[in-house]
Each structure stands twice: as C-alpha cells, then as structure tokens.
C-alpha cells in the first residue's frame, strides 16, 4: 500500500469518528433537526378542530388514538371517550413513549387549553414520533363547541344549520341529550305480555 493511500485511509477513519461524535452531541439519532422541527411547528395542519375530532370519535375511527396530557385527577373527573392519560410531566417516561412509537395511528393530543399539548407535541415530534396533532383550543374549546353548541344566528345558512344539527346530535352521543327545541315528549312504555310455553312431556317409553 502506498503512503498516500495510507494517509487518505487514516484521514477518512478520523473523519468518520469525528462525524459520529458530532452527531452524538446533537442528540438522539432519531431526533429531527431544529430547522425541520420549527418548520413543522408553523404548519397549519398541526392541529385538528373540535368538529373533526368529534366526527372521528362518533365514527369509531380505528386509526384514532387520543391522549389526554392533563393530570390524573382532571382525567378521572372528565375526559373524551377512549382517551388515554399521559400527564405532561410523565411524557418522557419510556413506558409512555411506547404509545407514540408507531406509524399507523393518528394521535390527537389535548389538554384544557393548547399550551401543554403544544409542549407535548413539540417534544415528541423532536424525538421523531409521527402522526401527531393537537386539539385546537383544547378541551375548553371542544366543550364549548360541541356540548354547549349554540344555534346559528342571522339569516338561514344551510352549512351553519347542518353543522349545528351535527353538533346537536353529537351532544346526545356524549350524554347530554337533545336540546329542548328538538326533544319530543317521552312515550309511555308498552308492556308486552309474556307468553309462557308449557313444557312438553317426555315422549317415548314402553306402553
């Protein structure tokens, strides 16, 4: 082997070692660079609306995973159907990260507002987890939009009316019952007479 070749090989080896450690300093191998993360942060489709999430819950979307990052007490008091609880302060625990370590489900993160969900989204996206969205306005906004849905004001508009009808239906799904305007009087229950059949005697035998 010629001397120049030796120098080149040694140089390349040193270069690769240096690049390896430089990469290590930047963080985990899966971590996405800050520039990419900040581009994703400013994208509009980072969040999901209250109506869209409601639609997916009602349709029983099998690809949907809902994560409530509020504390356990708040979660136990009230949460969205099917939501799992991972409090923000515990989001970095290995067991909890396992919920995000997949590329199939669409995970919707929510808190009461947006700030805590933003922090969770940011940390998880930075760590390379995908398919994450934030519930726009959080549970506060969801509750006002769906559970406390108000009829549209102003002149009739089909789109607004359809949206209100959808929200009103969703209220029933989430346990509130239809608004008094659309509710009908309860019907008296009709008793169906139970007809008891006589047991047949065992047939056969010797006469």
């Amino acid at each position, binding site marked *: 082997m010629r001397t120049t070749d030796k120098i080149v090989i040694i140089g390349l080896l040193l270069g690769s070692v240096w690049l390896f450690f430089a990469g290590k300093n930047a963080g985990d191998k899966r971590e996405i660079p800050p*520039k990419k993360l900040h581009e994703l942060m400013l994208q509009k489709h980072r969040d999901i609306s209250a109506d869209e999430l409601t639609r997916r819950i009602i349709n029983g979307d099998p690809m949907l995973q809902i994560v409530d990052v509020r504390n356990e007490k708040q979660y136990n008091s*009230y949460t969205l159907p099917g939501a799992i609880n991972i409090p923000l302060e515990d989001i970095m625990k290995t067991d909890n990260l396992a919920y995000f370590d997949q590329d199939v489900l669409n995970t919707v993160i929510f808190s009461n507002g947006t700030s805590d969900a933003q922090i969770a989204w940011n940390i998880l996206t930075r760590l390379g987890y995908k398919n994450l969205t934030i519930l726009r306005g959080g549970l506060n906004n969801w509750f006002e939009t769906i559970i406390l849905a108000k009829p549209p004001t102003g002149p009739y508009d089909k789109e607004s009316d359809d949206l209100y009808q959808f929200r009103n239906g969703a209220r029933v799904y989430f346990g509130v019952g239809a608004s008094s305007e659309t509710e009908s009087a309860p019907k008296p229950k009709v008793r169906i007479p139970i007809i008891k059949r006589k047991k047949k005697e065992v047939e056969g035998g010797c006469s």
Partner: protein
Amino acid sequence: MVGFKLNLKEMNKLNLFFTFLAIVILSSCSDSNMRRYAKSPDQILKEYLNDEDFISPGEMLKIAEAPDPKYHLIDIRTPDLYIKGHLKNAINVPLHDALNPKYKNVFSQGNVTNIIYGTGNEDVVDLYLMFNELGVKGNKFFKGGYIFVASGGKSEANINDEKPAYNFAEKLKELAGAAGTTVQTPVKKKAKKPVIRRKKREVEGGCS
C-alpha cells in the same frame, strides 16, 4: 529530509482529500446554533413546568404603561395586526420570520430583556419553544396577548389557557338533568362474555 517521495499525481490526490475534509468541517460548523439543540427535551419540559421565562399580567401591564429602557417590546403578530395597533415602542417580528438571521440582532440585546407578546397563548408558546431549543437568551414571554395589554387589563383574556373553563363533569350533569337524561361518562367498553349454547338433549326413553 523527507522519508518518502510524493509524485505529482499523489500530491493532487492529497490536495483533493484535504479540500473535501475542510469543506465538511466548515459546513458543519457554520450556523451551528441553528443546527443543534441547546437543551435536551427533559430540560425544556422541566423549565416549562417551572413556568420560567413567562411574565405575569401585572408585570406586563407595568412595563407597557411605563416604558423602561431595560425592556425591549417585541410584537410577533402579523404585520397587518401590528399596523392596526401595537404597544408603544414595540417592534414587529412576525412569528414566521422570527428565526430569520436578519432579526438576530433584534433578539440579542445584551443587557436588555426582550418582552415578547402576540395574539394569545399559542404563538408565544411556539416562539418560547423555538428560542429555548436554540438557546436564545434574554427573552420573557407574555401569554395574554395584545388585546389584554392594550385595554389596560380590562378585556377578558385567557392568560392561563390551561385553566379548565368549566367543571366539565358537573356541567354535563347539569345539562343532562335539564334534558331529562342521564350523563354517560366515558367508560371502557366491557368485553362481551361469550354465549355458551347448550345442546338440546335427545329424547330419552323408548324401547331398545
């Protein structure tokens, strides 16, 4: 003097190699603060939970009412909103452009603390995260938004968006009571027990 002789071809090879190495090193060093995180995710989370770098509504109102040279107000809303109205002495650096190198000097003011405000919580938290991740220091963030400060604290503002707007469970009960139904709390679906069907016994008896 020299232990080995290099011919012209080998010299070219070496030159080419060292030039390549220099380019790699230079490119990785340039703009390094934009390429690497200054803090780990754990650190970011810890600082956020400790509520560091956020200022209270009272502090913000005080700064807005009596401008102090040690504070530098930065409005991160869109230029349109900024033109319609902004706090006295505030300069506009839209959120989408905040990491543009042309604003580097705006945010690095030495002894001056930047007070950053936007439309509300979301835009300010985004910039807080970006700056924290890149290690940009000397900034304080206000979550309440411009409208709150401009009205002298009179307008309703969601300073802490993480505060529950209602006691959700109670409110639901109340609404369910009004509608004459019961509240369905979101519970896990119970697994259906498998139905075991018994085989009909054959009629016994008869002559063998």
